[in-house]
């Protein structure tokens, strides 16, 4: 349902709005002529055509405006043709008149510009406590005929004032541009303008007082309308509407006031430093442009050339860095490379290890055997055992390890005694020489 209105507007858009600058000027011009009494309210076709010619002259158009086309486009919403006696007359519609008023008030609010907002308040919101609070009906009359009407005017006044301040501030920005002639004079002119705005700001303060005063009067009248629920509800609703509106106006006035104050203050301080500010601003803009020209977007990252000097700032990070959560499903599993196997080397190492293992096993067996002999009380003459071991094992590694093991065993066991005589005994084989070595148990 809400879309119905959009549908209607989209269909009639080209007719409900003036189709060109010429058309808009024509309607406004006709309205002005009627207001001044230059043409009648119901004007003639000749008046209409003359008005078109006026606009063409005003716009200094070389070619003529297509009167028929223009007339056809405006005839729906902006004027109607009425029979008057034997001839036809043209009359602007109410829509056309309201439309003109809206445009003129917005573009050139001359009257309002020269009045302080307080004037609009005082003119539109007079509240006679005796008469207006006499009954709920009289208060409603004030609400409908004074307050609601005033609402539009007050809002319009604040909007215009805000726009005026904004445009003045925009003009002020031009002061920061270089090569301005008669700078001091220009600043002086602005000071006059802003003094005027400052006066308006003072007026805004009294407007706020007046607004509060009106609101307080209404709030104090509450008891007069408490006789029954219906009356009170009616009063309460109106009071809340007024309150909400005043709050809105209060915020607008404060914002405008603040803008005026900031700009006026800045303006006063400007003259001393203006030249420097202008130069600095130019340099800054050139620098920014150079940065933009030389920077590049590389995979979403903005980077400058390596030759550009970077500046550092102190930065002691006191936060813990969160470890990123990595979803391993998103990563390809990389299999480790298997090493190449050198079979010959592998076999050689394997044989070597097996041989060492065998030596250790045999050494342990011989040590156990000799250990048993010692326990039974027999004396061990190692040169004899050596020959036996060499013959059985067919290598020298085992007997040497056994000899070493026996000596270590004696060191640990207090019940064994080792006697070495430095008399060389030659082994039958292997060109091996050793001293006589005897181990015996000391246990009785």
């Amino acid at each position: 349902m809400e879309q119905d209105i959009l549908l209607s507007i989209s269909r009639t858009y080209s007719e409900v709005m003036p189709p060109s600058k010429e058309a808009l000027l024509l309607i406004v011009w006709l309205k002005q002529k009627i207001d001044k009494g230059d043409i009648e309210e119901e004007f003639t076709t000749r008046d209409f055509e003359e008005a078109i010619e006026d606009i063409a002259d005003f716009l200094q158009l070389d070619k003529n405006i297509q009167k028929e086309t223009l007339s056809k486009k405006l005839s729906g919403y902006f004027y109607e043709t009425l029979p008057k006696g034997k001839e036809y007359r043209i009359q602007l519609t109410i829509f056309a008149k309201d439309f003109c008023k809206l445009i003129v008030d917005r573009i050139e609010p001359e009257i309002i510009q020269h009045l302080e907002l307080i004037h609009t308040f005082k003119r539109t919101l007079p509240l006679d406590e005796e008469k207006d609070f006499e009954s709920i009906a009289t208060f409603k009359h004030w609400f409908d005929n004074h307050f609601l009407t005033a609402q539009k005017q007050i809002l319009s006044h604040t909007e215009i004032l805000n726009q005026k301040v904004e445009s003045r501030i925009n003009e002020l920005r031009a002061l920061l541009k270089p090569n301005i002639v008669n700078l001091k004079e220009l600043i002086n002119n602005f000071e006059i303008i802003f003094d005027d705005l400052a006066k308006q700001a003072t007026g805004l303060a009294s407007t706020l007082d007046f607004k509060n005063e009106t609101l307080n009067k209404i709030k104090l009248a509450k008891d007069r309308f408490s006789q029954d629920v219906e009356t009170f509800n009616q009063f309460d609703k109106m009071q809340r509407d007024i309150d909400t509106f005043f709050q809105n106006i209060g915020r607008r006035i404060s914002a405008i006031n603040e803008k005026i104050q900031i700009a006026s203050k800045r303006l006063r301080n400007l003259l001393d430093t203006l030249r420097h500010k202008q130069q600095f601003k130019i340099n800054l803009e050139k620098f920014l442009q150079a940065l933009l020209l030389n920077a590049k977007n590389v995979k979403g990252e903005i980077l400058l050339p390596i030759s550009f000097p970077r500046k550092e700032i102190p930065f002691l990070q006191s936060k813990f860095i969160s470890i990123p959560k990595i979803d391993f499903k998103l990563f390809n599993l990389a299999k480790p490379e298997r090493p190449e196997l050198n079979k010959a080397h592998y076999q050689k190492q394997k044989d070597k290890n097996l041989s060492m293992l065998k030596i250790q096993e045999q050494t342990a067996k011989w040590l156990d055997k000799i250990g048993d002999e010692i326990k039974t009380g027999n004396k061990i003459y190692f040169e004899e055992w050596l020959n036996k071991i060499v013959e059985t094992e067919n290598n020298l590694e085992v007997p040497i390890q056994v000899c070493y093991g026996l000596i270590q065993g004696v060191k640990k066991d207090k019940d064994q005694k080792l006697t070495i005589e430095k008399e060389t005994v030659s082994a039958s084989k292997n060109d091996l020489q050793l001293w006589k070595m005897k181990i015996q148990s000391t246990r009785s």
Partner: protein
Amino acid sequence: MENENSIYPFLNSELARKYFANTDFALKQGRHIQDYGNDHKLFVFVDEYYDKGLQTYYENFFGMKLKREEADRYRYYFLHFPEDSKGKFGVENRSKELEDDRLIFGILLLNLYKEKFFEKKEILWQELEQIFKEGEHKELWQQLLYGKLKPNYSPGEEAEVKNKIAKILKNFEDLGWVCFINQEEIHFEILTSIDRISKLYGDIINDVENLKAYFTNEQLS
């Protein structure tokens, strides 16, 4: 202790008991302290004791300068490296380079700050968008932000750029250069201390006629 306190009188103060720790943390994290918002109390403390031992404290114990600067008649404070040294901030993880994207946005904000000389320094996202889409250097901005020039960008591309800028602004907020009014809508105020970037890069800004010299090598960082 008595002797120390005469060199650093701020240590005896009630304000130091309340605000020194937070001020110290803030300064070491690169924050610029000014009379604004939550930093008001820290500013009052630094402003009061700057010449009463606070400046000497950072110089003697950290080899750093506690600097006071002024822009538009408002003061702000920050820690700065002394000439040819970085004091105790010379070791790893105690300083950082101002990243390239931060520098470019910093200069943009400083420019806007100067432009708004006569008004409040509030910026809405729409204003930034206007610079990127309709401004004098719109092509350069778009090339830089989106990585390519197109008549229209997809909602995804727009969101990505907006996020990128929000992140930079958040970083600036930590440094005390801007203050968010509404972070979600990217509505913020540029603060006085944005002026620091003009001090940091003052040598280049005041030497704009030789800008080419700074961009000789085309290889990117």
